[in-house]
């Protein structure tokens, strides 16, 4: 963790309620995708924890030319205030918080599943996985309520990921949730009864059996993904959780949950937990 002053470079609406903010400065403390930064806002007591969407590191140690990108949804007074911030404004930010996704477990065919406001951290994961020689392909399922809330679909495509979109109202892509899209994908790869077929079976179509998954999204989506992808299809993965936080760095115990490995703090031991640890 590092406390830094970052300067707003860009703050623009991607959809009516989703904004992207680029912050320039010392970004050295950001390491893994899935980590978050915690921003102090004037007039608000608690900082706003927001996941890292992308990071560029400073050209040299001690330089301030790094950039960290966040994508935030307007959910309350704090995020509403953030939409009014102009480029050039300086923010007090704690960076490099939390325990992010471990990409070493991705295998040859990782699957990324993001829903709505949970999509941003998967972008940095996708970018790093595409740069990873061990990964033969990276598949991404993005879920939205409807087409007018969609964002970042093209960006994942530009990285070279295989992108599947699901919308709850069917206005774009597969009608339904990310788990409906997942079922279609595994059928497409020639093993409709993947769960029954067991872990060893490899299909010969272009979609190989997924080796690992990474996900982030609202809790109902996480529960559905846990049931469908981990329990039913037998694929292990890593899930990023959200909780109201006090400090964001492990001091206050405000965001604890019970896991198979004991009590964990979402902010410090998470926000990413492994499917094997989750008690659902």
């Amino acid at each position: 963790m590092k406390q830094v002053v970052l300067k707003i470079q860009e703050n623009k609406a991607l959809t009516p309620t989703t904004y992207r903010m680029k912050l320039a400065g010392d970004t050295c403390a950001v390491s893994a995708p899935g980590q978050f930064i915690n921003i102090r806002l004037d007039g608000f007591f608690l900082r706003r924890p927001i996941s890292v969407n992308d990071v560029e590191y400073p050209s040299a140690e001690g330089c301030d030319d790094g950039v960290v990108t966040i994508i935030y949804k307007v959910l309350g007074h704090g995020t509403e205030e953030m939409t009014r911030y102009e480029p050039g404004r300086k923010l007090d930010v704690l960076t490099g918080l939390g325990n992010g996704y471990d990409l070493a477990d991705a295998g040859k065919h990782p699957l990324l599943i993001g829903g709505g406001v949970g999509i941003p951290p998967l972008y940095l994961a996708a970018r790093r996985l595409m740069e990873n020689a061990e990964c033969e392909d990276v598949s991404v399922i993005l879920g939205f309520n409807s087409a007018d809330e969609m964002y970042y679909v093209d960006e994942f495509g530009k990285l070279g990921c295989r992108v599947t979109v699901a919308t709850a109202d069917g206005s774009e892509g597969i009608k339904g949730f990310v788990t409906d899209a997942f079922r279609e994908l595994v059928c497409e790869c020639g093993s409709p009864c993947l769960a029954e077929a067991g872990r060893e079976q490899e299909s010969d179509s272009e979609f190989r059996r997924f080796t690992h998954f990474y996900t982030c999204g609202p809790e109902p989506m996480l529960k559905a993904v846990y049931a469908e992808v981990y329990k039913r299809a037998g694929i292990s993965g890593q899930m990023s959780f959200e909780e109201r936080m006090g400090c964001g760095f492990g001091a206050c115990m405000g965001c604890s949950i019970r896991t198979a490995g004991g009590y964990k703090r979402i902010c410090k031991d998470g926000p990413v937990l492994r499917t094997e640890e989750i008690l659902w």
Partner: protein
Amino acid sequence: MVDTKVDLCGITLDNPVIPASGTFGYGYEFAELYDINCLGTFSFKGTTRDPRFGNETPRIAECPSGMLNAVGLQNPGVDKVITEELPKLAEVFHKPVMANVSGFSVEDYVYTTELLAAQEQVGWLEINISCPNVHGGGMSFGTDPCMAADVVSAVRKTTDKPLIIKLSPNVTDIAGIARSCEAAGADGISLINTLMGMRISLSSRKPVLANTTGGYSGPAVFPVALRMVYQVSKAVSIPVVGMGGISSAEDVLEMMMAGAAAVEVGAANLTDPFASRDIVNDLPRVMEKYGISRLSDIIGASH
């Protein structure tokens, strides 16, 4: 050079700044950020006889100039604190630490206090009879002068180390409770614990906190805390540790002028992990500004 040293129940502190229990863990999260030996001491996470998960989440809600918490005394239990947390702490903190004790019965308090008091690292025991976020214990001991005295006289028998009793502001006569603790053998009083409050979500029409109510802390409560420290320090002759919304060196001086011999810094640590260190560093400048050469001279200056 100004002198920031103060005496707290016979132990000299390099300065009066003490991060408050529940906002500083067992110290080592902060030790990764700065050398926590710059602090007077700190009060570690409230410890109970048995391990506790605490309340369900959400446990945190924001408020104007502060926050509500309803953590509910999550801690690994006194045995693990002694075998795991204190050895880790010893590596990064070399001063006597304040052990914060909570319980659900007089026997709980006695059991936990006795074990912690036997630890060499522990300089003071802060007996929390004021947690608003647990049921069937905690605050109920701190809202009744007789029950408070029962806890104090029972734990008094377990140790000669200084016993500081942490009081709740959620009472009508805090000075009366402080006097009752003093009479039962307390060496000091700390106050205030959080003020009970709640928030309701307009969209769900339900309380924000899973526990319904929580404890309000942060700069908003500073004037309430200051008033109570003033009243209690006038009512007792033992040292008072003042806390509640302190977030600057100026606040430290004001709290000491109200009667505090030392201060605890709570919520400020959560929004700025360097808050306590920065207050320590800023104290000499602010003392010079107000013509204070020896900090202990201003204790109770407003009386």
